[in-house]
């Protein structure tokens, strides 16, 4: 076996470790009782009341309501950060302004939960991706893992830094209320409800107004589904949202990692493979040695020959 053959064999073995359609077999996925929010960007008027309500509800650094009425915020593209769990951005893909709210999407199969080595992030049974400060190490793997780049870190807090992101207003949900942003939205472009019903509603809206919406519910299948869903008149990629495909991020990472150690078969197989190579090589080497030793024996210097090989 030469080097090329060996590489081929190793490559095919590595591929065999990753199942072809990982997403289908992944145990996670949409929750039966999960809640969500449907954002109809064609209704949003860009008033930024949701930002204000979010800051107030989550005890974030509060600015006056009047400061949210300023349109100057739309001059630049903003991202959620440690003191703003949600931001509204203005886009003009076809000349007319479209506003889109950004926040944690509360994925059905969250990358942050998968990446967190201490389970500081958890997917609750109601669909909320919740953060537990008491467990957090501050490794920030979640920040790297998130496909939407949502979690933010309090870099300016030297002693008790936290990872910050939309909490889905857990306290309000537990009291039977809607999230603060949903409650305040004057035009009710945010609809809070069961995720399954929201998807049905979204498709019904598209069906009724085919000219108003693109035929796609963003978040229904993206990265395995998200609790926050979007309807829009233009593709969401034109509103600053990434095109991520339908496989959940953990499907890839977890499948690779778990497959490597699944029932300890792959390590054993790899070990056995290496053993076989060694054994094959050794046998080949022995025959060489035998030939050499025969030759050397004629001259009576077996030790020197062994050193040379």
């Amino acid at each position, binding site marked *: 076996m030469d080097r090329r053959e060996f590489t081929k064999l190793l490559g095919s073995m590595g591929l065999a470790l990753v199942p072809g359609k990982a997403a289908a077999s992944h145990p996670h996925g949409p929750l039966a009782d999960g809640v969500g929010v449907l954002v109809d960007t064609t209704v949003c008027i860009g008033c930024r009341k949701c930002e204000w309500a979010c800051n107030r509800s989550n005890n974030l650094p509060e600015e006056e*309501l009047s400061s949210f*009425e300023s349109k100057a915020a739309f001059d630049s593209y903003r991202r959620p950060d440690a003191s703003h769990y949600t931001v509204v951005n203005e886009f003009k893909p076809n000349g007319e302004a479209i506003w889109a709210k950004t926040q944690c999407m509360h994925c059905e199969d969250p990358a942050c939960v998968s990446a967190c080595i201490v389970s500081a992030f958890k997917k609750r049974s109601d669909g909320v991706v919740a953060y537990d400060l008491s467990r957090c190490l501050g490794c920030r793997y979640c920040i790297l893992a998130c496909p939407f780049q949502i979690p933010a870190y309090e870099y300016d807090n030297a002693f008790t830094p936290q990872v910050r992101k939309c909490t889905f207003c857990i306290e309000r949900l537990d009291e039977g*209320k809607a999230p603060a942003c949903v409650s305040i939205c004057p035009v*009710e472009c945010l609809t809070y409800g069961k995720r399954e019903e929201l998807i049905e509603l979204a498709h*019904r809206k598209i069906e*009724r107004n085919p000219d108003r919406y693109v035929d796609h519910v963003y978040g229904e299948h993206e990265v395995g589904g998200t609790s926050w869903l979007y309807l829009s008149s233009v593709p969401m990629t034109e509103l600053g949202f990434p095109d991520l495909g339908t496989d959940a991020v953990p499907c890839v990472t977890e499948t690779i990692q778990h497959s490597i150690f699944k029932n300890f078969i792959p390590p054993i197989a790899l070990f056995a493979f290496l053993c076989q190579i060694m054994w094959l090589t050794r046998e080949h080497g022995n025959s060489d040695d035998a030939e050499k030793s025969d030759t050397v024996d004629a001259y009576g210097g077996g030790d020197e020959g062994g050193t040379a090989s």
Partner: protein
Amino acid sequence: MRSLLFSLVVAFFLTAGFVAAGDPFDGPMPPLKGEAVKEVDCEHCHVCEQPTYDEPCLKDQSCPRDVAAAKLSPELGPDVIILDQLEDLYVPVRFNHRAHATMTEMDGGCPTCHHFTPPDRPHPECRECHPGSVLLSDIAQPGLKGAYHRQCLGCHVEWDSSTECEICHAKKAGGALHGSATTFTTEIHHTPIEISDLIVMKTEYEEGDEVPFHHSAHVKLYGAECSLCHMHQNCSSCHVHAEASHPMGDPDKIDLHDTCYRCHDDNNCEYCHGRAHDDRFDHADTGWLLKSYHASVGCTTCHARQNNGLTKPDPRCAACHPDGWAEGKFNHSDTGVRLDETHVEADCVDCHTDGFGSPAICSDCHDDDRVYNHQTGFESPDSPESAD
């Protein structure tokens, strides 16, 4: 036995048929929770299975929208509505329903906002269908807050280019509310709409480049509704983009020929182009000089509209005045001659000696040549100051 077997087979196939028909993936979508509470079937108005906002595929004359639009005039609706069901961060909104209803006449009428009206009922209030609570039991339709705001902001965002709540609301002072509280806007009046007497339009027509348009005569005398010409206009036609706006809409898209042809489709170019500015319709040309009361009423008081023209009325007095001139049925001031205390006691024939159609002759009773002046009453031609 055979018939029993037959009926069993038939029952089996029927059941199978029903099961197949009940498949949710086959046929129209099942209604969402709470959506089927509407009081009319879709087929009552729509002919297609999936009506959309732009393509509603409505049946003629049977839709509640059309019925409602034909049935109700702005005057029948409330004047001012206080919207206080959701009072929380802001004080109640004082909504001038009358003004909005009147302006909407030009563009869609009542159904612009009252998008659902069951048959045989006046328009329901928004809150009858849209619940007030934020946590909706029925997610398929907006709550009351969303319904209000979507209706209002649909126009006002376009008009005001602003989402500041103080367009309609005033913030409540104090409390948990941040930001400065403003005083409650009690009344927002529309500026009186001015109708000019004569508009002279410049055109590039060689035979006569000026087209005089007697605007107030069309409205007041000929009885043209504003919406006859100002179709599909709304607040933003006048209020958006200040200097570029025009009461007829986008100036680049206006074709006044279309507008004028709605009535003047039989007239040739010179009827308008190059016409003398003071060349207005004179009723005397028809052989009937209008005097006093008849000169001040609109055409349709006597003439009925027929297609784009007017009918010829019955020239006899009694045709319009069937009650005659008996006491209590007739106000003599309508003729332009106000009777003073002395004359009101007199019998009709005392003055109108030759019958009602004939003018009264003052000199039959008075020998001082007095004449009647519409402003000051009876007066002597020689000394108006000492008029009686």
